[in-house]
């Protein structure tokens, strides 16, 4: 899949927070949602999702509860906490600043200086 990009280190947490902010999801659902919102452009190894999920739970950014999925299987659903929402906002802002700065830097031309 040459059109898929490896995600940058440290961005997985942000992606997860974003995915979950659109509605409670189970682990596999998070994966699908990230695929969906990134238009399948970002590649995540499936198993790698879980250490990140547990880390976010431990940091109090996500909370988890058992429920039943659309496939009628038992699954653990994750949703944002208040702290998670705040963190998502902050991280999104700082990401945007960084991205804008990077884009501007890379777009620079010789005659513009």
């Amino acid at each position, binding site marked *: 899949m040459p059109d898929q990009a490896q995600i940058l280190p440290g961005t997985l947490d942000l992606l997860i927070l974003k995915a979950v902010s659109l509605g409670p999801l*189970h*682990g*596999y*659902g998070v994966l699908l949602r990230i695929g969906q919102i990134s238009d399948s452009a970002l590649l995540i*190894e*499936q*198993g*790698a999702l*879980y*250490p*990140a*999920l*547990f*880390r976010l739970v*431990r940091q109090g950014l996500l909370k988890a509860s058992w429920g039943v*999925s659309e*496939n009628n*299987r*038992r*699954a*653990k659903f994750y949703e944002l906490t208040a702290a998670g929402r705040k963190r998502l906002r902050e991280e999104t802002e700082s990401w945007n600043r960084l991205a804008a700065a990077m884009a501007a830097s890379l777009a620079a031309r010789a005659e513009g200086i």
Partner: protein
Amino acid sequence: MLAYLRNLGSKLFRHRQIAEEMDEELRSHIAHRADDLERSGLDRAEAGRRARLEFGARERYREESYEALGGRFFESLLQDVRLALRVLRKSPGFALAAVLTLALAIGANAVVFGVMNALVLHTLNVPDAKSLYGTQYGVDAPFQSYPGYRDLRDRNHSFQDLAAFNFTLGTALDTGNDPQAAGGFATTGNYFTVLDAHPYLGRLYTAADEHGQGSAPYLVLSYGYWHSRFQEDRRVIGRVVSVNKHPFTVIGVAPPGFAGTIMFVSPDFFIPVVEQEVIGGNSLTDRSNTAALFETFGHLKPGVTARQAEADVNRVAAELAKAYPKEFEAKHIVVGRTGLTAFGGAVHGFVAALMALAGMILLAACANLGGLFAAHASDRAREVALRLALGSPRRRILRQLMTEAMLLALAGGTLGVMGGMPLLQRLGAWHPFPGAPLHIPVTTDWRIYAAALALALLSGFLFSIVPVRMVMRAHPYEVVKAGSTARAGRKFTVRDALLVAQIAICALLVTASLVAVRGLVRSVNASYGFDPRNAMTAGVNLANAGYAGARIPQFNRRMIDAVAAIPGVDAVGLVNNYPPLAYAAAWRERVFTEQTRDLTTSHVALRPYRFNVSPGYLKAAGTTLLAGRDFAWSDDKSAPVPALGNRQFALRMFGSINAAMGKHFRIGDGTLVEIVGITEDGKYLSLTEDQEPAILMPSMLYDDPQSYLIVRSRRDPQQLHRLMRAKIHELDAGLTLDIQTWNQLLEVVQFPAKVATMALGALGLMGAILSITGIFGMAAYSVSKRLRELGIRVALGAKRREVLKAALGRAVRLLAFGSVAGLVLGLLATRVLASIVYQATPRDPFVLAGVVLAMALLGLIATWTPAQRALSVDPMILLREE
């Protein structure tokens, strides 16, 4: 503690729940993925397989998830411990061998550490023992005279207060018609004050009780003696007992555990030193009598170092030498810790050597276990490979191995301590000489447990690092493909190196113990300059029975004649004080040339040992007279007084035996002496001394109350003992007698060599056991690994010899290699051994042959079982199994 356990318990409980939840979640994920794949057209089985594959290294992510949950140290530790226990249960032989080996090694180290703790770290059982310093016992140490002590006490600037003590050996304590030999201390009045000791009962005497000679007839009992002689009778306070026929009032009992100020000796009672001369002891007024006190000591003033104190003491010595040139010799005085006295160096050296040997045992055990552990781990190569393949981090696998090692080490350590403690307790309760108040002050305290724990952890760490390299290099695919059959490599592996190291150490220990045993045998058979066989000794202190002055030599003559009349007695003689070598009590005389008029210490020509002996002593002692004559009863005090010298004295003083005969010299008090005979050389103070000069003076010209009769006879010692006692008691029933064979009397001087031999022997035995287990382990392992190959060889018609060679050749080669290395090390360690054991030299054909034979025998024993197994290989069964 309870809260901690509960917390741990709840963590343990939660841990299981979390693990189950996590598994369920991961399964759920894979199921959902499989659902999607199935919807895209795959069949269910294929969808499940693809889903699992896409998920990635499940084991690794599970581990990482655990880590992400955080604070899981105890959980993973418990998990490790549980797994380790399971693994060890599966190979009980390995576990047992490891635990026993470690128990042996750690037990030995705990015992040696216990001894070190008692002798080196713990010193005396008094408050602040660490700041107690003083002048030490030595030949002609000037502060060991009473006036010398008093001057030092008053002139020094280093000690808070200075006390001193002396032995009252050979004293008899009588509670009313039952005189019994008892050993006490004569101490300065401030003794208990300086030591900050408080009475268990009654009171202890102080400096205020002393008002000059014979002014303080008070006696303090030691707790132990109060228990054994007075059955803890509290009414003993105020009672009058007699010491050497002189009345003393019992004023108090010292606290339990208070055993005076010298290690190995626990006195029965304490009396003020001002009573010493009264009971027939050394003079307190004679400045040149350096046997008046044994040691002086006191707490250093705050901020004063031992070195400063030594400089201070030597300053006082220089002043005194100027003031009293005749009596006081200006020689360098050593200030040292009180307790071990001048033997401190020897004791420290011995303990250090023991500790080094015990450390080697531990090292050998670790090498042994490292090899076993590596073998054990390589048997599990497949398991390790699988875990690696499933994504378990190497770090985690190593931690698992480490946990196993630590469990083994702790189990071994516990067992070792459990075995070592009773041994230490018995050592502490041991009284090696019934006649002398000697004991080894070993106690068991927390330090020993702490040391054992530290050693267990250290050894666990040491032997668990051996297989680390193997795990780090393990390549899962290779191992799974190749299976667990080891290659019969020609390569020299780490395990081989460990085995060689272990065998080398064991060979060194075996060498050491053989050398020690040989040394002891030699020291027992060495020439002492007298013949202790077929000789009986009777120690008698006439001061006990109230004799003094001229009555002493008269009574000695009567005793000699009475004992000589016993049928079967060949010769009887008498020596004042103690016979040579007994209790290391020889003392030196200052000898001047005949022309010397100024008898100051700087003009001393020679300092030979001096013994006062009666006519007939030479014959009774079995000492050969090389020239001249023995003393005669007709010899008298008219100048020149006759004397005998030993060969060394003749050579050093006059150049040759012939030149010495008939020559004159002066002794310390100025008496002119003529040499009438020359005796053979001998040993006088210790077995290890260089050849020293000695002179013999006629005992009947002096009135020393303490002496030993030497009785040469081939009669049964028990019979002779009874007859001698009866004969002497016919003369005076009130005398206390110390009758034993001369060899028994010498046991004290042979004691260090005996202890060293016992200790080295025990360590050598352990070394032997370790090398057996090491070789056995290695041989058994290589045979079991190569059973299939051996089976094929047998099937192809290999002869027994060839099978054996294939199976065990390597073990035998390693054994030979290690033994040679150990022998060479043993030869290099000569000097260390020689300092402990008299006449120890591993350059001894007997020892060399013994070591080679011992190692060969050990190898034979250790390879016997594996060899049997190799020979009984049935190829059909083996091949069918695969």
